[in-house]
């Protein structure tokens, strides 16, 4: 044992562990304290929301703030919870979504109505950017002019028009079924993939499809959106949803964006990302420059350098998440295994429980953590800890159980106390197998930690999640390659650790030389 601690490698590992624990402590202190010039911006995981979050982030950066970007959270409830628990200071929400999904509000809520309901939550919605991202019916502009129609009501009378809608639109209450009862359509639409619908309308296979009113594709295919003259579609105004305690200075910065982005402007900005292949940072920079809010040159250089620093930052967070979870896994799994391995019943039931935890899909386990621990690193670490428990516990129990019974008998017969038997015979003999279990847990943690980005824990999953949402392979690789590198590094580190702690002839699966 003494030999273990004096080993330089072990010392180095301990030091890394301590350092990451300190880092976490610093992080949480920074969050707890009133750091005036830092802000956390969140986003949902689709294009428009990323882009707006990036606009807000750059605006804050320009004002001298340090911005923590927690982008790409999956699901309205997750990001809303993050805002409520003050892990995020601001994100862009849509009035319709806020009313229906979060507040269960029927009908069309005003800003005052929304805020009246939000006060108890410590959350506040600011005035809209101006655009309304809702469902709309799109028709080829030439064809609309030819028919002379501009509203949905006028479309009802066009008997031989071909309609193709996305499957979701065909089934949503605020989609086709509602539209039929509101306007009295009698035409039979066909269902198709949303992505294919624009191409189909361009090729003349269909005449009308459903669209989001701020889709970049609308301008690209030269489509016209028909006016919802009966006001059927609920309105989804994009507006900043903020932590109600945000100081006036910060509110004023966000407020500079109020009313600056109408539907057409939003379509244009979305199109620059989706169709021209520009990055969010680029488009956000362009927009701010065009609006005279920020000088353009500032931003391009900032994004170029930030790629590497973000990569480093993400990797550091990732290592931190994994190490802490692994440390907890060892701190619980190893002693637990030692205590319960003699009891067949206890070992069985603990392994059963740990195994059960393992079968919960990672993303579900992470989601289950949210009501209990909120979002961010804490729930992620707890989830990773639960995953690491099984391999560590199982390897510890198995390693102790499979020790040659003759050796256990001899250790006892020599007159060693329980503790002496454990320290001098059982644990050293179990060590190679236990190390293998810890290694497995470490590698599982590194993999699973990429999913932690879904609940805003950051790490290498962040570029992966973003990349997946935006179909951006290079972003995915920015997360996937370092994650794979970390896994390989871990494998190598454990090899070194094994070699320094375990005599060569005791190594699992190796012949004595």
């Amino acid at each position: 044992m003494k030999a273990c601690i004096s080993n330089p490698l072990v010392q180095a590992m301990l030091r890394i562990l301590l350092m990451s624990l300190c880092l976490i402590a610093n992080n949480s202190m920074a969050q707890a304290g009133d750091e005036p010039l830092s802000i956390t911006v969140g986003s949902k995981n689709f294009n428009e929301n990323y882009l707006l979050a990036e606009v807000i982030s750059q605006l804050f950066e320009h004002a001298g703030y340090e911005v923590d970007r927690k982008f790409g959270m999956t699901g309205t409830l997750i990001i809303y919870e993050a805002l409520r628990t003050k892990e995020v200071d601001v994100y862009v929400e849509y009035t319709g979504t806020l009313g229906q999904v979060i507040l269960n509000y029927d009908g069309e809520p005003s800003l005052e109505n929304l805020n009246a309901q939000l006060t108890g939550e410590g959350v506040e919605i600011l005035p809209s950017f101006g655009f309304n991202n809702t469902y709309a019916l799109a028709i080829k502009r030439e064809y609309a002019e030819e028919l002379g129609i501009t509203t949905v009501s006028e479309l009802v009378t066009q008997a031989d028009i071909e309609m193709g809608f996305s499957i979701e639109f065909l089934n949503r209450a605020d989609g086709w079924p509602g539209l039929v009862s509101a306007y009295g359509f009698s035409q039979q639409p066909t269902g198709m993939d949303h992505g294919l619908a624009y191409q189909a309308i361009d090729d003349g296979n269909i005449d009308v499809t459903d669209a989001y009113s701020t889709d970049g594709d609308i301008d690209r295919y030269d489509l016209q959106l028909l006016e919802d003259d009966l006001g059927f579609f609920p309105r989804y105004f994009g507006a900043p949803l903020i932590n109600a305690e945000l100081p006036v200075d910060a509110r004023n910065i966000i407020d500079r964006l109020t009313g600056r982005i109408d539907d057409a402007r939003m379509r244009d900005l979305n199109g620059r990302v989706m169709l021209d292949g520009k990055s969010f940072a680029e488009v956000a920079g362009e927009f701010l420059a065009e609006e005279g809010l920020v000088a353009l040159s500032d931003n391009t250089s900032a994004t170029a350098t930030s790629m590497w620093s973000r990569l480093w930052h993400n990797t550091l967070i990732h290592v931190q998440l994994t190490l802490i979870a692994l440390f907890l896994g060892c701190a619980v799994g190893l002693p637990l295994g030692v205590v319960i391995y003699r009891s067949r019943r206890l070992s069985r039931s603990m392994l059963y429980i740990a195994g059960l935890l393992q079968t919960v899909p990672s993303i579900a386990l992470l989601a289950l953590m949210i009501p209990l621990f909120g979002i961010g690193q804490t729930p992620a670490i707890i989830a990773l800890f639960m995953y690491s428990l099984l391999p560590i516990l199982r390897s510890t129990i198995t390693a102790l159980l499979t020790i040659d019974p003759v050796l256990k008998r001899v250790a006892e017969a020599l007159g060693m106390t329980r503790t002496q038997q454990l320290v001098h015979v059982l644990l050293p003999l179990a060590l190679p197998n236990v190390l293998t279990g810890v290694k497995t847990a470490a590698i599982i943690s590194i993999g699973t930690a990429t999913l932690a980005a879904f609940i805003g824990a950051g790490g290498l999953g962040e570029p992966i999640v973003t990349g997946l949402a935006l179909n951006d392979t290079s972003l995915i690789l920015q997360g996937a390659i370092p994650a794979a590198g970390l896994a390989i590094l871990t494998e190598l580190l454990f090899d070194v650790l094994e070699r320094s702690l375990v005599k060569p002839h005791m190594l699992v699966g190796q012949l004595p030389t």
Partner: protein
Amino acid sequence: MSIPCIEYSDITKSYGDKTILDGLSLRITANITTAIVGASGSGKSTLMQIANGLIIPERGQVSVFGSSITTENITDKRLAIGYSVQGAGLFPHMSVYENITLIARLQRWTEKDTEVRFHTLMQLLELDLELRDRYPFSLSGGQQQRVSLCRAMMLNPPLLLLDEPFSALDPVTRDSIHREFLKLQHAETRSMVLVTHDMFEAIKLAQEIIVMCDGRIEQQGSVAEIQNNPASDYVQALFQAGGQ
């Protein structure tokens, strides 16, 4: 009869439905070597492991040097009882030196005392001092068994329990280790109990012999008594089996 080193009274032990020992009582004489001989399954190994508390009988009492074994005194008792098993049972992660001296170091012997005792034992069992830092996997079967004997005798215990220690060795190695064993008897006086299925080994190494059959004591007596007056066909058969 002199004071016994081990005294069993009314010992019963069973595994599941199978009763191994049924109300057995027995005194083993101190300061000599006693061999317990019997076929496998006769209960001889169980009997031995009851003496150092590795096996707890359902009924009955066992006392070692006049005091009975309890859960409180078991660790101290074991320090006074050396133990060596078939296949040596050396700890694979410890060197020869570490294996032999482990228990002395745990008892906080001085380095000097430990070193002296180690040297004495290595010499007694004719082990080359160069083996000191070798690991068990690199030793021959005979060397491992010798190291195991050294380990059992490290604290110079008054009682040594040997559970078939020589059974797995080839005849030539066994012969030479037998010679060292006899030398050991002369060098250090102690009570030794040797469990073996080999009657000839018993005759060669022990002064008294206990023959066991199906958990009963078939015959107990000096080597001469057993040799000259086998009490039953079973005892007789052990001579023939051993001779083959």
